[in-house]
């Protein structure tokens, strides 16, 4: 553990002091002088990540006229609840983290945020080339239709994606290689069950970790393209539920857990496979017994007929419309700085989130860290297959319906087809505005 911290610190030092391999973003010609404003930034990063974020903020403040105050507001859910309350009270901060497109869509619908696009296009913004340096999936994740036009409404910051975790020792004992498709995973789980005493798969049937990636890998989707209707009552949707039912009820190779309850048994070496985001690794390593450490295996989620797919986790940044124009501009300058190559490399190596730009992936600091540990690249390589969570402002009402649908099927209370049909009706009711 101590060594791990040391490596991270060393990498941070490298990232902040070493010369950067690629030029960082430079200001386009006619930008107005930087405003001397104070920016309030509500975020959801605590513990080590909170400290690292505060260090970044301090670094920004020491070199800029814009002064940022970061305020920790609790978990993403609490942060969201506070923002909703702040919107009611009319006293929002200048900028905040959001956990994904559905919340951004809600804020946008309430006209509480200004689309980031206007700053990207401004003299303070980014050139085409600079924008092209960002991973396209991340820009998509931050875009929503505004007046029928795809628009950047928020800005990427801490991004991770869902991956397959495995215990290489158990796989070796069972004589199983890392599965590349869902079918291979099912067979691998059966082999692990037959040849070892380990739990083949321990997972929480969250729609994000399993249902959606599986659905996408079959070519299906949760909602129709215009987000106006349920889109999962299809053979692909039924397959996405049935697959989990097969594992849990027919093969009995999957143990269903709640929340992060799979993490400890996995860390204790009792579980062969798990599904979680790239950020889970430090938590797993921390929970490992000192005398039974193993190298946590990470691989992309298995592929379906339409290739592999994963979904984006983490957070994006938004600017509130109630903030004065200068504050908005200051907030944008901070966001832009935060995602410049040097900072995104530093943040990525410190946090386990992914670097957001190609130049960051190719930077010396990141490359040397990846040379030491190729697992850093697993999440990044999966990025090209990443989907954002559907950007519907009603997603919060839809997600529990999908969760209940999967739970019902996994408990054998309904077959996959009936569970899907029932959920489809509920989702369509929600989307039609009840």
């Amino acid at each position, binding site marked *: 553990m101590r060594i791990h911290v040391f490596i991270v610190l060393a990498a941070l030092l490298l990232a902040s002091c070493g010369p950067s391999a690629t030029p960082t973003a430079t200001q386009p010609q006619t930008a107005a002088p930087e405003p001397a404003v104070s920016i309030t930034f509500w975020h959801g990063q605590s513990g080590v990540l909170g400290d690292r974020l505060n260090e970044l903020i301090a670094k920004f403040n020491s070199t800029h006229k814009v002064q940022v105050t970061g305020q920790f507001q609790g978990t993403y859910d609490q942060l969201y609840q506070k923002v909703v309350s702040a919107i009611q009270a009319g006293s929002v901060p200048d900028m905040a983290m959001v956990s994904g497109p559905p919340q951004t869509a809600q804020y946008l619908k309430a006209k509480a945020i200004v689309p980031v696009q206007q700053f990207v296009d401004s003299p303070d913004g980014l050139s085409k080339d600079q924008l092209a340096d960002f991973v396209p999936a991340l820009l998509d994740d931050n875009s929503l239709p505004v007046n029928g036009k795809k628009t950047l409404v928020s800005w990427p910051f801490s991004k991770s994606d869902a991956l397959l975790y495995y215990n290489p020792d158990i796989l070796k004992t069972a004589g199983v290689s890392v599965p590349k498709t869902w079918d291979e995973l099912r067979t691998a789980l059966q082999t692990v069950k037959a040849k070892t005493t380990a739990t083949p798969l321990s997972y929480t049937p969250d729609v994000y970790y399993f249902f959606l990636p599986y659905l996408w890998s079959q070519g299906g989707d949760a909602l129709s393209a215009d987000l106006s209707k349920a889109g999962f009552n299809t053979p692909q949707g039924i397959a996405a539920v049935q697959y989990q039912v097969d594992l849990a009820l027919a093969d009995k190779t999957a143990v269903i857990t709640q929340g992060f309850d799979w993490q400890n048994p996995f860390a204790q070496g009792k579980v062969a496979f798990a599904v979680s985001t790239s950020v889970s690794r430090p938590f797993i390593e921390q929970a490992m017994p000192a005398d039974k450490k193993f190298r946590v295996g990470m691989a992309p989620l298995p592929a379906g007929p339409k290739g592999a797919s994963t979904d984006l986790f983490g957070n994006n940044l938004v600017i509130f419309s109630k903030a004065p124009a200068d504050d908005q501009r200051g907030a944008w300058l901070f966001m832009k700085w935060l995602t410049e190559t040097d900072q995104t490399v530093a943040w990525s190596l410190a946090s386990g989130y992914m670097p957001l730009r190609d130049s960051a992936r190719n930077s010396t600091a990141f490359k040397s860290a990846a040379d030491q540990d190729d697992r850093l690249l697993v999440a990044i390589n999966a990025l090209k297959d990443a989907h954002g969570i559907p950007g519907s402002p009603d997603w919060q009402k839809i997600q*529990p319906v999908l969760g209940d649908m999967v739970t019902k099927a996994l408990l054998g209370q309904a077959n996959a087809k009936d569970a899907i049909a029932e959920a489809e009706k509920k989702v369509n009711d929600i989307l039609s505005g009840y």
Partner: protein
Amino acid sequence: MRASRRRREALEGYLFLAPALLIIGAFHIWPALYAFYMSLFRWEILQEGFLGIGNYLRLVRDADFLRSLAITAVYVGGTVPLEMAVGLGLALLLHQRLRLRGLFRLVYFLPYVTSQVAVGLVWSWVFNPTYGVANGILEGIGIPAQRWLLEPRGIVAAGAPPSLALAAVMLVTIWYFVGFHAVVFLSGLTAIPDELVDAARIDGAGGFRLFRHITFPLISPTTYFLLLVATIGAMTSFNLVYVLGGGGQAFGCAGNPLGTTQVAALYVFDRFWCQTQLGYASAAAFVLGLVVLAITVANERLFARRVVYVG
């Protein structure tokens, strides 16, 4: 002359009342009025169209809301009488001249002074299907392990409340509140005049007859008080059910599994905070408030006349 003195006295009275009124006004009455206002609108993040009683009409047809009322009824019916009965039993025991009586009083009261959230977290470990103590005990005596808080199946009939999850929550609720009932009953017992008990004994009463004709009637003010407080508390209970129902977990908002622990207060929370239907949730909160009021009035009609005050 006299009128002005009375006015001054009244003014003083209001002055003394002012701090409390201000707090109650600002944090109870004003929010309640504002919630009622919100309940008349379609109000997600921001105020949208005026619906009048539209939200209320939708509630009456909302299967999830009606289910949450049914779950609340089961929860109240399954916890309050048991809490009171066990609490009274304990109080009678603790009223005897026992050794270590003070220690026992402390032990039984201890859960009640512990944070409900902490209690909820500890019990959710106990009921954890993978590493919980509850399954360890079951397996020790040869009963198959249960999924406890993750089990939506009913314990009486498959589809009817309470689910095993809700039953587990009810058990924890009873465990938590028994000490409170015991202590309040105990104070009721100590208030019974000794001479009445002695007189009854001289008349030949003892054991159950003494309890039936002297003790029980004379603690009726305490019983009535506890019934009211416990019923209102259970109908609006939130913390324990929220934590034990997986609230705050990544998976689902509150009232897991499959909504079978979603009591009415959790329904309100879920619609307000997790689904951001502020107007609709406010309407649900109002209906819940009216139901609580109706039951309190019913309690009074049914039981107030039977209360005996000795002073």
